[in-house]
Structures are given as C-alpha cells and as structure tokens.
C-alpha cells in the first residue's frame, strides 16, 4: 500500500511493539526457569511450557515445583522473616522504594513480557498493569516508612503464602508482595501456571534491589503447587482467583489458625440511568468489559439499563463495539488482545453457545485464541449468563424501571465485588452507591484502582481488602495471642429449692420472647448443685427464625449512627439500673464474685461502643484522580456470634455492642455454661428501644448452633469466642457462602481490659466499601 492509498483509506496500519528485548531476556535465562528460593534461582526441575496465546509459540519452560521445593521456599521465608521484621519499617521502605524504582526502570521489559505471556494489549500492560504495580510499591514503601508510628501493637503475620491469577500477573504480585513486605512478612508466591514470566523477572529485580535472601520466594507450577502452599507451614494465605478454588482453600485452612484473605469472582453490575451521559457510559463499558478481554474479576459484565433509553443505548454500544480492534496484543492500536489460553477460550465459547438472547459481536476477529467482543441483550435475571461469571469479553444486558429495581437486580447475585453507576444526578448516584452489595462502587467511571483505595468483595467474591490501610492490616496481627480458653463445664446438681414464682427463660427472637422450637429446656445449677432455673435448648429452627428476624430488621442498619448510639446508651442505663440483680445472677451462675465488676465493665463497654457508633464511618483516600474516593465503613449485615462461655454478661455485651453499634443485626448464642443471663438481658433489651430483630439471643449447645449458623447462607459473618473446637468447624462450613469468620482458635482474651474492646471488633463489624466519585463541572 502506498502513502497515497493510505491517504485515501486512512487505515491505521500496524504499530507493533518490538518483542526483541523481552525475548532476549528469556533467552539470556536459558529459556528454562527454575524457582526463586532463598535469593537464588534453582536449577530447572520438571518443566512445562508457557506459551504466547496470541501465536501459540512456546516462550519458555517453567518448573513444576515439588513438595520439597515448596518446603524449601517456606523454610527460607521462615528463616528470613525475623530479621526482615527486625530491621524496621524505614529500612524496609528503602527496599520497597528500590523495587518501585527498578520496576520503573525496566517498565517496558515488564510490559512486553506480560503481553507475550498473557495476551493482553501492550497498551494495557504498559499503561495499567505496570503503572499500577509501580504505584503499589511506592505507596507501600511509604507504609513501611510510617509503620512504626501506626503499628498499634501489631506485628507481622510471619510467612505469607500467596497465590495469584493469570489475568494481571505482575499487578497481582504487587498487590500481594508490597503490603506483605511493608509489614515485615516474608513471602512464598506462586504465579499462575499460564503466566509465570513477569514473576520470574520480578525475582531478578529482587536480586538487583539487594533484597535479603528468603524475603521473596517464587515457586511456579499448577494448582497442585498452590495446594502445597496452602497446607505448608505458613501463617497467612492470600489468594486471588476463582470462587471455586477459594472455597477449597477456605476448607483446607479451616481450623489451622492461618489468616486468610480471598479475592474471588464477580458478576459486577453496570447500571446506566436515563439521565447519564450515554456516550461516556458506552465508553465506560469498553473499560469495564473489554479491558483485558473481560478477564477481570471486577469486570462490569452485567449491564442494567433503564428501560426508556435501552434501545438508544444498545444502538450506541453496538456502534462502539464495531470500532473495537481485536488482534495482535503487541500492536499499540489494539483494544482487545488474545484470550489467555485455549482452555479459557473454550470455556467462554461453551457458555455463550448455551445461552439465548439477542447477540451482537465485533467483526474482523482473527483466527486463533481470540474471542469477539460480545453483547447479549434481552436476557432475564434467571438466565445463567446473568448469574455466572464468564471471564471473557461478553457483556450481558437487561433493563430496569426504577432506582429501587436497579438495586434489586444488581444485588440479585451470589457475588459482591464491584458495581458501576452512571447518572448525572448526584441524588440518584449517591443514593444508589451505598445500597449496592459490592466492595467497590464506581460512579460515572469504572475499573479505577489505586494503592491507597481498598479493593475486595463481599459474599462469594471473598473477604479481605487489598490496598490502603485495610490491605496492610491483613498482613499484621496483634502482638500477643491471648491465653488458651479454659473449657467451662456447667455445674451439675440435683437439689431444687422452691421459687416464689416460676421464671421461664426463653430465646429472644425478633423482639419477642420465644419458646424453643424443640420444646426442651436444660436445668441450670449453681456451684452448690442447687437448681437455679431452666434454660431453653436452642436448635436449628431457632437459629433459622432468629436469622430471619435479623435479616428483616433492616431499619437498624439504616438508622443514623446517632440514633444507634442513643439506643446503646439507653441499654447501658438500663443495665446499670439492674446492676445488683445482674451481679447476683452472675455470681450465682458462675460460683464466683466477679458479677459486680462484670456489670460495671459491661456498662462501660456499652458506653464505649455507643461512643464509637458515629465515629467509624470511613474516610477519603488520596487517589490520583480529581474526585472523591471514599472508603466507607458499612455494616456487614447479619452477624452470628458465639459468646464466650466465661463472663456470661460481659462476654456477650462485648460481642453484641460493637456489632450493633456499627449497624449490624445479630444472632448471639449466649454462654453455654451460664445461659440464664439472657433472662435478664432480654428484659433490658426490650425496655431499651432496641428494634425487634436487631439483637436475637439464643441459648443452647454451641457446637450445634454454631454449625447451623456457619451453614446458613443468609448469615454474612460468624464470630466465635467459644471453645477451641468450634473454630475449625465454623471455618470449614463457612466455605459454603464464603461468609467472613472471626474465630478465636481457642485463644481467649481479657474481657476486662483493652483487649475486650480492641479495634478488631470495629474492623470485624464493618465492611469497607470503596466508592469512587470522579467529578467535574
């Protein structure tokens, strides 16, 4: 084609980025890679091929790590950790700064290598993946520098096992490695089997930065290696990947005491209101679902359009799709590159072929591992494609009529990772954003990320946040573990004494005293063996009823923080008024004389959380954008809690108060040994304006009731301060709906001291929702 021809047809031609330097780097390494353990590359072992999905060409041979390799990596990390933590934040900051700088210096090499291995467009690798990874190390260099001023008695977790996906290989590495290192942890990281190369280049960078040996270890291989890491002697597992694998990791780590964060799948809604800037909303979809070929956990893959503008919007969207350029990812003018692997391509094809609806696809897609950008309209929410994650460039769409309906459809999903809202009306946008079940909400924009802004999901999108102080916190733990809880057996006896009037203890469900469903009660004796009352034996159905009541008590979560504080102060007032009576009950049940102290501290604890009610709302984050990025603290929802056996009043109040102060509705299982405390507490709750369903109290066997709560799909989080044995069972069962769990693994806490009201209670009682609101008049 001559210049004159092009002058007439105005084609783009091709603008390929050279792969030469990246291929030369691979060749320099022998095109066969060992593992990076203890600061050295091992000799390659059994290997598998990593290929360029755009061409099918083999790029290099990668080692499949063995169990011995993983053990060696963990041992190296374990050996390096104490010193790495001990050198202090400012010293670690220097290393993180060096890593940031080295990433920047070799940015094009990283970008081209990423594109070769993953198939994503070079523009994205260059302008998004590498740029954000770089920013992540800078930000966390700062975190390390300031760590000692903000540590609040926390220390590093220790050795972190980190397993990352293939969609953003280096960026996910940065998200995992930077905060871990900042807080003094050492890591064993496994990149995804299809995309190991940038992690291996990063290992090279670690050497160049002079990072102490063993601080970063990289082991490659398939899912089997991931399983080895999960079961290895590590203190924390951080995983990003599919919900299916996340669930297995939850089960595998249950009861082990390993800290766990999961960043899993999504089916994120993208809501377009009729007053939106439609052209901008269409362009936003290019970033939402065609960015990285839709192989993005938070891809805006579910389009919800207000009915009145749907046809116009779809027409604009189809026209935009026809302009997308799909092809050679190394071409700088390509919008959508290759699908990461033929297996993934087959998965996408199969899902779309099984679906109905009206389909539009971008034309001119090359042969090979590519999939055309696809829009499927006229789907109802019941269609599988509206529910299942596709992880490809496929957008499915439906319509809605009102903001409420948009929210309802948006939230009608097992996932809860991200959501996007387009409206020019600030009232609509800022009303809808907090009501969406998602960890991240973008208003008039999409797929915005920054190291200072937490990212992560709720529901089956996982738990934990990455980025910001929330992300850092996941890489530290309290300096002290509490002493092991002592098992408390209920007193036994056979003597009875006449009571003036019989008192019947009941459950407290939905604001009413409820007889146990099973119709059984247990005799409660004092230390001398005298019968002091009967306590209902709760069962599955009592839990079911309590959860239903809690789910229904939406008003409590919607109440103002001031209002919640008032209720909690009133609770304190009423508790205090019955202090003598309560203390007597406690002492009688426990056979000790701490009752009066317990009541006094419980009153204080209520004051403490009443005070916190309106002071833990989140804050704004300094992200590189004109706009507001707010990390909002929202209630988790329905929290189930197993109260400690010891200190029947103080323990229960310490668990209940933070949960309700933050706006949660609760189902609390009282001390198994000393359950009669609920008798008086129920009356206090009833007289303190606590709305029906906000607090539900159940008594009975902890193990059985905890299991039901852990299995229950409508419970958002489950805490246990009970016996050690509960922890594993709760964590295992919680894998079902991937609810958050907070269990004691048998370690108690000093309920009378600061540990009884630590910041952790507030953290666990809230979800962080990051709301991005770019603006501009």
């Amino acid at each position: 084609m001559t210049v004159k021809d092009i002058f007439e047809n105005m084609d783009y031609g091709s603008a390929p980025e050279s792969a030469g330097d990246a291929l030369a780097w691979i060749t320099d390494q022998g095109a066969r890679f060992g593992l990076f353990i203890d600061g050295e590359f091992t000799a390659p072992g059994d290997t598998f091929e990593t290929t360029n999905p755009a061409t099918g060409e083999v790029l290099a041979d990668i080692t499949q790590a063995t169990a011995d390799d993983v053990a060696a990596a963990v041992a190296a990390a374990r050996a390096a950790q104490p010193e790495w933590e001990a050198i202090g934040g400012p010293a670690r900051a220097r290393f993180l700064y060096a890593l940031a700088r080295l990433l920047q210096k070799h940015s094009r090499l990283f970008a081209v290598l990423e594109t070769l291995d993953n198939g994503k467009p070079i523009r994205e690798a260059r302008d998004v993946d590498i740029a954000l990874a770089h920013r992540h190390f800078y930000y966390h260099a700062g975190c390390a520098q300031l760590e000692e001023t903000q540590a609040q008695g926390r220390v590093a977790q220790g050795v972190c096992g980190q397993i990352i996906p293939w969609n953003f290989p280096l960026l996910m590495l940065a998200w995992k490695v930077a905060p871990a290192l900042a807080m003094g942890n050492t890591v064993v990281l496994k990149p995804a089997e299809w995309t190991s190369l940038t992690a291996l280049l990063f290992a090279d960078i670690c050497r160049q930065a002079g990072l102490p040996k063993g601080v970063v270890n990289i082991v490659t291989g398939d899912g089997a290696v991931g399983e080895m890491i999960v079961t290895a002697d590590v203190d924390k597992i951080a995983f990003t990947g599919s919900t299916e694998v996340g669930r297995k990791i939850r089960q595998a780590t249950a009861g082990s005491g390993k800290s766990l964060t999961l960043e899993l799948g999504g089916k994120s809604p993208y809501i377009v209101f009729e007053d939106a800037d439609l052209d901008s909303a269409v362009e936003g979809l290019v970033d939402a679902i065609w960015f990285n070929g839709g192989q993005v956990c938070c891809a805006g893959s579910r389009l919800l359009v207000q009915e009145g503008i749907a046809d116009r919007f779809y027409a604009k969207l189809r026209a935009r799709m026809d302009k997308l350029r799909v092809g050679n990812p190394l071409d700088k003018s390509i919008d959508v590159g290759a699908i990461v692997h033929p297996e993934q391509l087959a998965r996408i094809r199969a899902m779309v072929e099984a679906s109905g609806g009206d389909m539009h696809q971008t034309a001119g897609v090359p042969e090979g591992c590519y999939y055309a950008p696809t829009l499927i309209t006229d789907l109802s929410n019941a269609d599988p494609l509206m529910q299942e994650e596709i992880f490809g460039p496929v957008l499915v769409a439906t319509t809605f009529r009102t903001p409420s309906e948009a929210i309802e459809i948006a939230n009608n999903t097992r996932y809860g990772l991200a959501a996007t809202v387009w409206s020019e009306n600030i009232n609509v946008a800022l009303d809808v954003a907090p009501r969406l079940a998602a960890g991240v909400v973008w208003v008039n924009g999409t797929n915005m990320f920054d190291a200072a802004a937490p990212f992560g999901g709720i529901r089956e999108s996982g738990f934990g946040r990455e980025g910001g102080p929330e992300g850092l916190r996941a890489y530290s733990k309290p300096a002290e573990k509490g002493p092991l809880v002592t098992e408390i057996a209920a007193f036994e006896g056979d003597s009875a004494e006449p009571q003036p009037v019989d008192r019947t203890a009941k459950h407290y469900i939905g604001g009413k005293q409820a007889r146990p469903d099973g119709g059984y009660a247990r005799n409660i004796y004092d230390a001398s063996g005298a019968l002091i009352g009967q306590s209902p034996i709760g069962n599955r159905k009592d839990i079911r009823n309590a959860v239903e009541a809690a789910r229904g008590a939406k008003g409590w979560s919607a109440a103002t923080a001031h209002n919640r504080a008032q209720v909690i102060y009133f609770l304190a007032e009423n508790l205090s008024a019955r202090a003598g009576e309560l203390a007597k009950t406690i002492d009688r049940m426990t056979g000790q004389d701490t009752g009066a102290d317990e009541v006094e501290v419980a009153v204080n604890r209520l004051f403490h959380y009443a005070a916190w009610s309106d002071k833990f709302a989140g804050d704004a984050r300094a992200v590189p954008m004109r706009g507001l990025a707010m990390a909002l603290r929202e209630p988790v929802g329905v929290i189930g809690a197993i109260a400690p056996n010891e200190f029947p009043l103080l323990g229960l109040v310490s668990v209940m108060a933070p949960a309700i102060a933050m706006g949660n509705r609760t189902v609390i299982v009282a001390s198994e040994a000393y359950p009669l405390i609920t008798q008086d507490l129920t009356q206090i709750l009833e007289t303190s304006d606590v709305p029906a369903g906000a607090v539900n109290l159940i008594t009975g066997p902890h193990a059985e009731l905890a299991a039901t709560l852990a299995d229950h799909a409508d419970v958002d989080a489950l805490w246990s301060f009970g016996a050690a044995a509960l922890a594993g069972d709760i964590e295992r069962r919680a894998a079902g709906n991937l609810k958050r769990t907070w269990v004691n693994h048998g370690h108690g806490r000093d309920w009378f001291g600061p540990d009884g009201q630590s910041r952790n209670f507030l953290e666990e009682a809230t979800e962080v929702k990051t709301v991005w609101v770019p603006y501009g008049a």
Partner: protein
Amino acid sequence: MQTISATGTLPQTVEPRNPGTALDLDWVMRATANRSAIERRAATLPARRSVKKDHQAAWLARAVSCIDLTTLAGDDTVGRVRRLCAKAKQPVRADLLEAIGLPDLTVGAVCVYHDMIAPAVEALDGSGIPVAAVSTGFPAGLSPFHLRVQEIKESVAAGAAEIDIVISRRHVLTGNWQALYDEMRTFRDACGDAHVKAILATGELGTLSNVAKASLICMMAGADFIKTSTGKESVNATLPVSLVMIRAIRDFYDATGYRVGYKPAGGISKAKDAITYLALIKEELGDRWLRPDLFRFGASSLLGDIERQIEHHVTGAYSASWRHAMA
C-alpha cells in the same frame, strides 16, 4: 489534478447540505457531558491509537489537506495574505510531496478577515482552494446584530465560500436557547450558498454540557460546520471539547441523516496532535468525516511541524524549520 478535486470541492457538492431542523428543546435539555469521563477518554485515546511509518506520512498529508491556513491579525496586509495563499497552494516542499506520491496536495482553505477576502480570492484563483472569512464581529460577536448579518453578506459578495461566524456566548451562558437558535438561523440564511461554520468559543461557555447544547442548537439552526474557537480565547480547541462536539455531530447525524462538519481551532500545533485528532474523528465519527468537506483544522503553526515530520519520513533524518518555506 486529482488531489485538488478532492480537497477543493465545496462540501455541498459532495454531501447534502444540512438544512437544519426545528428547535428541539427536549433534545437540547437531555444533552449532558460528564467531564471526568470525557477527560479520561481524551487522555487515553492517544495511547490507544498509534500510526507509524507510511501510515503516519499519509495521515499527516491528510491533516494538511484539512488545514484552514489562517491569518487573523490586525497587521495583515495584501502581501502577507498573498504569501499565505502561496503556501496554501504548495503547503509542503515539492520534492517531499513527490516522494510520498501526493504532488498536488494543498490545504483545505485559507481563512482571513473580511478585508483580506479579495486578495486571497485573487491569489488562489484557479487553485480550487476556497477562501473562508471570519465574520459577525469576530471574535467577540458583540457588534450590532444587523451589522453582523450585513458583514456575512458582504463577505459572501466579496467571494468567501465559507463564513466562520461567532455565536453570542451570552445566549448560552444565560440559557437563552431560542435566541441562540434564531441568531444562528439568521446567520445561515445570510450566507446563502456559502458554507457556515459556527464558532462556539467553547473556552467561554463554562461547561461541557453547555458545549453539547450549543453544538446541537447550531446544527438544528443549519450550521454546516461547528467549530471550537476563535483562536482568541484563553483556552481553544481541546480533546475533551472535541469529543463533546463530535458526539453531538454523531447524534445529529443519527437523528437527521445530515453530516455536519467539525473544525477544532487554536492550540493544535504539533503533528502528533493532528494525528490524535484524526484518530478521534475516525473512532467517534467514522472515516467519512476524515475529508476536508467535513473536517478542518483551524491552525497556523501546525503546518510547519507536519512539514518537518514529512521530511523526516522521507529522509530518515530529523528536519529543521528553515528547510521549509515560511508562509
């Protein structure tokens, strides 16, 4: 003279002329522009499209063919305008044009003040290059209305084939949409067969939403082109403003079937910027708009940078400004 016939033909002979529509205020009031999203699109576009080698040379030549080579200075003289017209006819050194196979390349038009129309018409006689005149009390547009209308008529009589009018910014700033429509209608009628480009002076309209609304109204009132700026505002053509205006053009075409042209003016001085603008047009409006009957650059210094880039393409060595004839 193939190129001349492509660049020199008046738009109406290629494309049915936009007759305008009734003022549709529902549509106008619906028009919105989300600034931050538009800025993001504008910021990422240059990184999304890259044009290299032969393609780059061809695209730059295309940019040259779309330039309204402009002089709008108080010290313009007949001699100065003649020099500009000579440059318009031979915008790039002949040996370079020969080398890229486009020996007949000219600019899109020459743009001058009213008093310079006659010498420009004379200097361009036979070249096929039209003369555009800025009008209606350019740049502020605050002279008596009847004089502004009369100025158009006199410029058309003097031989201007294209009239660049300025709208009354105050009608936009006060939301007096009917007045804006009526004004534009009157200007269009006064132009007769000459093409009318409506200068919105976007740097003075306050918001992108105003730009969107004003764009629509001018098209409804029969503008053949909408143009960003006079070149005299403190902020002239920008990519975000362009995005808003060309999306309005797209909506107008979708609704009426008439293609309205677009002219960014002021502030575009680099070859790379010109390519970005062309890519923006290609992406948002389509290839049909990449012709001088539907797209113009209002620019004076852009040509110099393009000449250097074309020489670089031809020789492989970086060029210098003194190697190219000044206007």
